[in-house]
C-alpha cells in the first residue's frame, strides 16, 4: 500500500465503474487462491450464503417483537439485555453479539443508521438492504431524519414526536421494538409475527394494523 509522508493513503488510480464480468472474474480468482490455501471451499461458500438467504432474516426479529408484545416479562428482559433475551429463543450470532433493543412509544420514535459503514443486527434482521448501506441514507438520516422518514419511507410523524437516531458507531447493535398497532388485542403471537416488517425494526416503518 502506497502512503504519503503523513501516513494517509495516496490516491489510487483506475477507471470506474468496473464491469460485472471483471468483478466476477476477480472474485473467482481470489476465491480460488483461498481454496488453494485450504481456508475455504465451494461447499463453505454455499452453506454460508444459504444461511443468510434462507435461515437468518427479519422473520427472526419479528418473532422476538411478537413475543415482547404478548409477554410483558419477556419484553422487560429484552429491553434489559437483548442479547440474552434473544438467546432464549435460539437467536444470536455474528453482528449481534452485543444487542440493544430500543422501544418506540407514542412520544418517541427511534431509528438506526451506520454513517461510517453498514453495521446492522444480522441475527434478528438478516443482512442489511442496499439502501441502508448506500450513501444517501447514511448521510441524511442523522441530519434530516424527519424528512427522510416522510419523503422516502412514507412515515409522517407528528411534530411533537421526539426522533432519536442511533448511529451504530461501535460494536453494540441497536434495533427497534416497534409499537403494537391498535386493533390487534385478540391476535396470537403467531399472527402478530406476520405483521412485523423489517423496516419497523430499523425504525423507518410503522407496524400497520391489519386491514
Amino acid at each position, binding site marked *: *500500500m502506497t502512503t504519503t509522508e503523513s501516513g*494517509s493513503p495516496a*490516491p*489510487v*488510480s*483506475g477507471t*470506474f465503474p*468496473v464491469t460485472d464480468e*471483471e*468483478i*466476477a*472474474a*476477480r472474485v*473467482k*480468482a*481470489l*476465491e480460488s487462491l*483461498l*481454496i*488453494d490455501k485450504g*481456508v*475455504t*471451499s*465451494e*461447499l*463453505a461458500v454455499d*452453506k*454460508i*450464503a444459504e*444461511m*443468510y438467504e434462507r435461515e437468518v*432474516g427479519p422473520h427472526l426479529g419479528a418473532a422476538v417483537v411478537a413475543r415482547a408484545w404478548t409477554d410483558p416479562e419477556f419484553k422487560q428482559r429484552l429491553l434489559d439485555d437483548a442479547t440474552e433475551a434473544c438467546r432464549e429463543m435460539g437467536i444470536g*450470532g*455474528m453482528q449481534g453479539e*452485543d444487542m440493544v433493543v430500543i422501544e418506540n412509544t407514542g412520544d418517541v420514535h427511534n431509528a438506526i443508521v451506520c454513517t461510517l*459503514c453498514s453495521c446492522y443486527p444480522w441475527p434478528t434482521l438478516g*443482512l442489511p*438492504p*442496499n*439502501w441502508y*448501506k*448506500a*450513501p*444517501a*441514507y447514511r*448521510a*441524511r438520516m*442523522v*441530519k434530516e431524519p*424527519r424528512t427522510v422518514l416522510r419523503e*422516502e*419511507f412514507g412515515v409522517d410523524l407528528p411534530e411533537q414526536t421526539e*426522533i*432519536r437516531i442511533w*448511529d*451504530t*458507531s*461501535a460494536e*453494540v447493535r441497536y434495533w427497534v421494538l416497534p409499537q403494537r398497532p391498535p386493533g390487534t388485542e385478540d391476535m396470537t403471537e403467531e399472527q402478530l409475527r406476520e405483521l412485523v416488517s423489517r423496516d419497523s425494526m430499523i425504525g*423507518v416503518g410503522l407496524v400497520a394494523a391489519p386491514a
Partner: protein
Amino acid sequence: MNGVHDLGGMEGLGAVDPPAQEPVFYNDWERRTFAMFIPFVLSGANLDMFRHGIERLHPVQYLTGRYYEHWLHTFESNLVAKGVISEEELEQRTQHYLEHPDEAMPDGGDADQAEHYLKIYEAGASTRRETSNETPAFGVGDRVRVKNIHPSGHTRCARYVRGKEGVVTEVYDAFVFPDTNSKEQGEDPARVYNVEFDSTELWGSGNAERHKVLFDLWEPYLEAA
C-alpha cells in the same frame, strides 16, 4: 482518516429510494464475496482492517461501486499487504477466469470446515473484553466533549461529532479499540459510552429539524466538558 466513507451530514447524495423488494444477493459474485469473510479473518486479518480497507477505496469507487465491490477490494488489498497472496497471481487468475468464466472452482476444503464456519456465524465473535477494575472516566449524565482529533488511520470517531458536546446515557464494557486494532498494534480495549447529542449542537440552530443523535464513543475519543 477523513475519508468519503464518513458520510454523516453530507449533502447532494440523492434520494434513498428504497425498493419494495430485493434479493439478499443480486448475483453469484456477491454471495461468493460475502462468504469470504471468515477465510479472510483466518488468513490473519481482523474486522477493523476489513473496515479500513474499504475506507481506502478511491472516493469515486466508494460512492459508485456496489457494496460487495467494497468487500472484494478490502479482501484483496489486505491479503496482498499481508503477503497471503500476490498481486501477480491475483491478476493472472483474474485473466484466466475472464477467459473461462464458467470454469468450476478447484476442489478444496471439506464438510467439517464448512460446518465449523457456520458455527462461527451462529456463535458470533464479540469484541467486548474484560474491563478489569478500572473506574469509568465518565458516568451516566456527565457532559462530555468529543476530542477534535483527525487520525489518519482507521477511527470510529466520525467527523460530525468531533468537538461536539453531549450527555452520557450509557456506560458499556470495554471493546477492542479500532484505531490500534486496524493497524495490528493491539486490541487496547477501552470503554465505550453512548452519548446523546442534540441536533442543534451537531448542525446548528438553523437546521430545519430538531432531534437527538445517539452515538457510541470509545473513551480515548472523549474529554470532560
